[in-house]
């Protein structure tokens, strides 16, 4: 178990202080994300501040980002993103998947 511990400590040291800039603001209105394309810095943790302006709840859902978070109607919530490798990561609003689609682009 020594190696995972050492590895964990190393990663903690590396990832600990590096924090991205202010949260990225995203709005959900009429079951659509605005903006639907979100650019983030690769390699650092990011936070999306999602404001749901609709009357009903939505679940920010992304298998690629490994996130599932419910944001109630007329409320907001923060979605944490792990440090991402460069690439694009689709996400959706699970309750209105027909319209609520978006993508995070890490670069």
């Amino acid at each position, binding site marked *: 178990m020594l190696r*995972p511990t050492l*590895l*964990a400590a190393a*990663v*903690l040291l590396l*990832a*600990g202080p590096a924090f991205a800039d202010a949260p990225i603001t995203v709005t959900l209105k009429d079951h659509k994300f605005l903006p639907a394309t979100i650019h983030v810095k690769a390699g650092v*943790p990011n936070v999306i501040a999602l404001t749901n302006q609709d*009357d*009903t*709840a*939505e*679940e920010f859902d992304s*298998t*690629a980002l*490994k*996130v599932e*978070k*419910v*944001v*109630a109607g007329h*409320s907001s*919530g*923060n*979605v*944490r993103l*792990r*440090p991402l*490798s460069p690439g694009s990561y689709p996400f959706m609003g*699970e*309750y*209105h998947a027909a319209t609520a689609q978006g993508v995070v682009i890490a670069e």
Partner: protein
Amino acid sequence: MIPSLSSAVIVFREAIEAGLIVGIVLAATKGVLRRTVWVAIGVGAGVLGACLVAAFAEQISAQFEGYGQELFNATILIVAVGMLTWHNVWMAGHGKQMAREMRTLGAAVSAGQRTLTALAIVVGVAVLREGSEVVLFLYGIAAQGGMTTASLLSGGLLGLAGGAAVSAAMYYGLLTIPAHRLFSVTGWLITLLAAGMASQAVLFLQNGGYLQILQTPVWDTSWLLPESGDGLLGIIGRMLHTLIGYSDQPDGAQLIAYVATILGINVLMRVVNRAKPLPAAVPSPAE
């Protein structure tokens, strides 16, 4: 009136997950007196809990600097892991005695009652987690109008019936296993269920910012078997996700939690087995 397809689909999707767990729990407690009552209590409490969680979604989220939801999910998953562990460890000490009683009495035994409460909690947690999503989704559709309540409800019931069918298939499938092997198979299923839940709890802790180590995915098998999605592969992936904690992009911390849970449960089972080398033929007063 036509049943709403979207409500049938989402209810089915969530009901599969809870249904698989109910099926395993029923098989794992085969022969125990009043198990259906306990499982029903678990389901009922889960439904009630799901409605409460959905109703207070905003308030739960607002706790702990906006990460109350992640912490809540991680907590109930960890409770479920604890209950599953307890069941397996208890069975390691009493399983043989239970099987013997069943053979001699040829009827349901009361020995397993205590571990039933633990499994009822697991069922409750499973129903609560999947159910709260269903409640929010259906409430959202209902609030928007454009679909009659009858259509929504009948769609939901169809989905629920599908989930119940999966549960029954799991249960009767497990019952085809010879009686003397059944509990060791359900024991392994429960261990893997616990390991998968532990790995999911880690993910929620990471997403809440409580644990920020080893977050890089170790592998990516989403091209081979996605862990979610509406296609056939997606459904298989989702079922494996529930059953054995399959993840198409597990990270290091999740894998450590997964392996540690399997090892932990097995070590505890062995320790308990050694502590009680041969259970007495007469039930001890503590039973």
